C-alpha cells in the first residue's frame, strides 16, 4: 500500500509538473496585459514535440541522444524522493538531500557535456555559463539544506519535515535565512529571471537554452519536461520545508486530500510570487551572477550560524 502510494506520488509529480509551468506562464501573461494560453498548453507542446522525429547532427556522439533520457530520469527520480503531499513514504527513506543534490548535478553534468558534444559555438557557451553558475549555486544550496539538517538532526527530507511538523510553529531565524538563500538558488538553478530568461530568442544571452539549442523532437520534449519537473521540485521543496503544514502524515483519504489541496494552494501562490518578481525585474548582466549567488551563499551561511548561535 505504502509503495503503491509512493509510486502514485512519483507519477503524479511527473505528470503535474507541466501544469505548474503552464500556470506560471498563465499568471505572467495576465500580468503583462497579454491574453494567456490555457495552463495546460505545455502538455500540448510536449505532445507535439513527442510526435516529431528528432534531428541529430552528424557530429554528435552517443552522448547526445542518451542525455535527454538521463536528464529526464534524474529529474523524475528526484521528484520521487521529495515529499509531495505526504511524508513517511518508503521512497523517502532510501534517499536523502545529498542524493537529491546529486541527481541535480548528474542531470546538469550530462546536459553540459551534450551542449559541447555537437561542437557549435552556442552549446559550448551555454555549457560554460551553466557550469559557472552551478559551481556557485551548489554550495549555497547545500549550506541551506545543512541548516535544515542541523535543526532536525537528519539529512532525510521526510524525517526532517516530520520533525518540523511535530515541533509546531516556531520562529527560527536560521530558517528565514536559509529560505532566502534557497529562493535565490532556485531562481538561478531553474534558469529564471534575473539570471536567465526562459523565453528569450536572443541566442547570445542564453544559458540553459543555449545548451539545448541543437535538440529537437522527443529529445527536446524530454529535456523540456525535465526542466518543468525541476522547477516544480524547487517549488515543492521550498513550500514543504518552510511551510510544511497540510502534508498528509497518515494515509487516510481525508489526510491525503488535505495534503493535495495544501500543496496545490502553496504552489499556486508561489507561482504568482515568481511571476510578479519576473515581470518587475530585468535580467542581470552575466558577470553580476556571482554577486547574486555569493549573496545566496551568505544568507545560507548566516542561517547556519544563527542556528548554532541562537537555536542550539
Amino acid at each position, binding site marked *: 500500500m505504502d509503495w503503491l502510494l509512493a509510486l502514485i506520488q512519483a507519477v503524479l509529480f511527473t505528470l503535474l509538473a507541466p501544469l505548474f509551468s503552464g500556470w506560471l506562464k498563465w499568471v505572467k501573461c495576465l500580468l503583462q496585459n497579454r491574453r494567456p494560453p490555457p495552463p495546460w498548453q505545455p502538455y500540448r507542446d510536449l505532445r507535439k514535440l513527442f510526435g516529431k522525429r528528432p534531428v541529430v547532427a552528424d557530429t554528435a556522439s552517443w552522448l547526445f541522444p542518451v542525455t535527454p533520457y538521463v536528464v529526464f530520469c534524474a529529474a523524475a527520480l528526484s521528484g520521487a524522493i521529495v515529499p509531495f503531499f505526504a511524508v513517511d513514504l518508503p521512497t523517502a527513506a532510501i534517499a536523502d538531500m545529498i542524493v537529491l543534490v546529486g541527481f541535480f548535478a548528474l542531470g546538469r553534468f550530462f546536459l553540459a557535456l551534450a551542449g559541447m558534444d555537437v561542437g557549435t559555438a552556442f552549446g559550448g557557451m551555454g555549457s560554460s555559463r551553466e557550469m559557472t553558475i552551478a559551481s556557485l549555486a551548489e554550495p549555497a544550496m547545500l549550506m541551506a539544506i545543512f541548516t535544515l539538517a542541523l535543526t532536525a538532526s537528519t539529512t532525510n527530507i521526510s524525517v526532517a519535515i516530520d520533525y518540523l511538523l511535530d515541533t509546531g510553529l516556531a520562529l527560527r531565524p536560521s530558517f528565514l535565512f536559509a529560505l532566502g538563500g534557497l529562493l535565490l538558488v532556485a531562481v538561478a538553478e531553474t534558469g529564471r529571471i534575473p539570471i536567465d530568461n526562459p523565453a528569450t530568442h536572443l541566442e547570445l544571452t542564453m544559458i540553459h537554452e543555449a545548451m539545448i539549442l541543437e535538440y529537437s523532437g522527443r529529445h527536446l520534449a524530454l529535456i523540456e519536461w525535465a526542466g518543468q519537473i525541476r522547477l516544480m521540485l524547487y517549488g515543492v521543496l521550498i513550500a514543504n520545508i518552510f511551510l510544511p503544514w497540510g502534508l498528509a502524515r497518515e494515509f487516510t483519504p481525508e489526510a491525503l486530500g488535505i495534503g493535495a489541496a495544501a500543496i496545490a494552494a502553496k504552489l499556486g501562490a508561489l507561482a504568482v510570487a515568481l511571476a510578479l518578481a519576473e515581470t518587475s525585474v530585468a*535580467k542581470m548582466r552575466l558577470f553580476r551572477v556571482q554577486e547574486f549567488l555569493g549573496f545566496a551563499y551568505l544568507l545560507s551561511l548566516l542561517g547556519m550560524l544563527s542556528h548554532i548561535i541562537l537555536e542550539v
Partner: protein
Amino acid sequence: MTATRTAVKEDGFMVIDRLTASLQSLGTPEFGNEKAQAGAVGPALLCPVIPEDWGVAAEAAAAQGCRWAAGWGEARGESWVVNALLEKSGDYLLLRTVLPPGRTGLPSHTPHFPGAARPERHTRDLLGLKFTGHPDDRRWVRHQAWGEREFPLRPDFPLSGQPPAVTAPDRSYGFASAHGPEVNEIPVGPVHAGIIEPGHFRFLALGETVLNLEERLGYVHKGIEKLAEGRDPEGLARLAGRVSGDTTVGHAWAACQAMECAAGVAPPERALWLRAIFIERERVANHLNDIGAICNDTAFAFGHYQFSRLRELWLRDNLRWFGHRLLMDRIVPGGVAVDLPAEATSAMPGAMAALRSELEELKPILDESTIFQDRVVGAGVLPERIVRELGCLGYVARACGIGRDVRERAPHAPYDRLGVKAVTRSDGDVAARLYVRYEELFASLDIIDQCLQRIEPGPLRTAWRTPPANAEGLGLVEGWRGEIATHVRFDGSGSIVRFFPRDPSVFNWPALEKLILGNIVPDFPLCNKSVNGSYSGHDL
C-alpha cells in the same frame, strides 16, 4: 593639402585650389555665393574634379574636417560618373568625377574617410568600378549569386537578373581571425532565433569578452537601385517607401524632395506641414518600439509591454486618421496623398497629451529599476572619435554629444520655421542612446503640436512637371535613424535613370563593431538594439 598644388585644368573640371576655396566656404556665409557661381545639385554645391584628383580631393576635405555623407556611381553612356557627398556645419558639397570610357579605376576615399569603406565596396560590387588603395577587396552586397563578371547596376545587366538555381555558399569570405587556446570564434546568423532581418556576425571572444566583431551584411539585397530605373515619379515614391519598412515616411520624403528639386516643383504649404507630422509620427512610433525592445533585451517585461502598448495605440491612430499604420505611400511627388481629417485635428492633441503623461510616468520606473540601469549604463560605449571617423548619424551620434540633425543644421521646409534643437547626451553608452530617444519623443510631440497649430487650409498637391533630360536632385531628410540622403536623376521623358537612397544605417552599422569591443558577448543583443541599424536600408 596646399593651395600651391597645380592640377591640370581641363574644361569644366575644377583645379584643386578652387576646390580648397569651395571647401573653406562650407559653414560660412560665403557658401551661398560659391553655390551661385559654381552650380548646385539641390542644397549641395557641385564640385567636379578630374579622376586623378579624386583622392587628393578627399584628403583636402578630410583636412577641412568634412564628413563623408554618401558615395555612389552611375553609368552614363560609356563613361562612369562617381559622386561623393561631403558635409560640414550643415553645408553640403557634391564631389563629382567622370571616368572616361574604358577606365574603371579611381583612387579610394577610404584612407581619408574610414566610413567610405563599405559604400565604396557597394559601388564596386554593383558597377564594377575599382577603387585603388581600398584596404578591403572582399565582396560586400554582391554575394556569390553573381558571377565574377556580373555587375547588376550596369546597363547591360537585365532587370530580371540571372539568378542561379542554387546560390553558391559564401565560404571564401575571409573573416578576421585570431589564434590562441582561449579564443573562441562565434558565428551568429544570418538566420537568427528571433523574427528579425538576416545578417551575419562573427565574434572573436576571449571567454565572454569580445575581442573583435565583424559584420557580414547584404542578405536582404533587393536591387532597389536597379528596380528604380525607368520608373515614373509616383512609382519611385512607392519604391522609396519600401527601402526600409520602418522608415517608409523618411525615405519617401527624401525621394520626393529629390525629385521635386530636380523638376522645380514646390509642394504646397499644407503638404509640407503634413509631411512633418507624418515623419514625426514615424519617429515617435519607432522610438517607442526601440525603447520597448531595449527593455525586452534586458528581459524587463513590464517596460517591454508598456512601450509596445503605447506604440500600438499610436499606430492605430495612424490607421484611423491617415489610412495606414506605418503611413506608407502617404507622401507623393508634389505633395501628400491624404489630408488631415477634422477628427484628427480635434483628437490628436488629446492623444499626444495622454502619451506624454504616460511617458512621464514610465520614466521614473526605468530610472529606478536598479538591474535595468546596471545593464544599460556603461554598456557599449562608443567613443566620440569613432563617431567622427565613421560619420555616424542620428541618435548614435547624438548620444556621443555630436548634434547631427538635419532639422537643426540644414533645415528644409517646414523645419526652417520650427527651430528644432538636436537632443544630445555625452556618455555614448546604451543608456545615452536610450535617453536621447526618450527626449526626442517629447521633442517630436512638441513639433507635431506646432505643426497642428500652424497648418492652414490649402491644396495638398502641386501638379507634376516633367523635368528636362538629366535633371537631378538631392533630398536630405532627418529620418528617425538619422540623415537620409537620396539622389535621383531623370531622363528626358520624365522617368528615373538613377536612384540612390542612402540610409543612415550605412554609417551606424560599422559603429556597432567598435562599440562592442571589450563588452561581454551576452550584452551584444542589447548594444545592437540600442543602435538598431536597418538591414534592408543598408543592403538596398
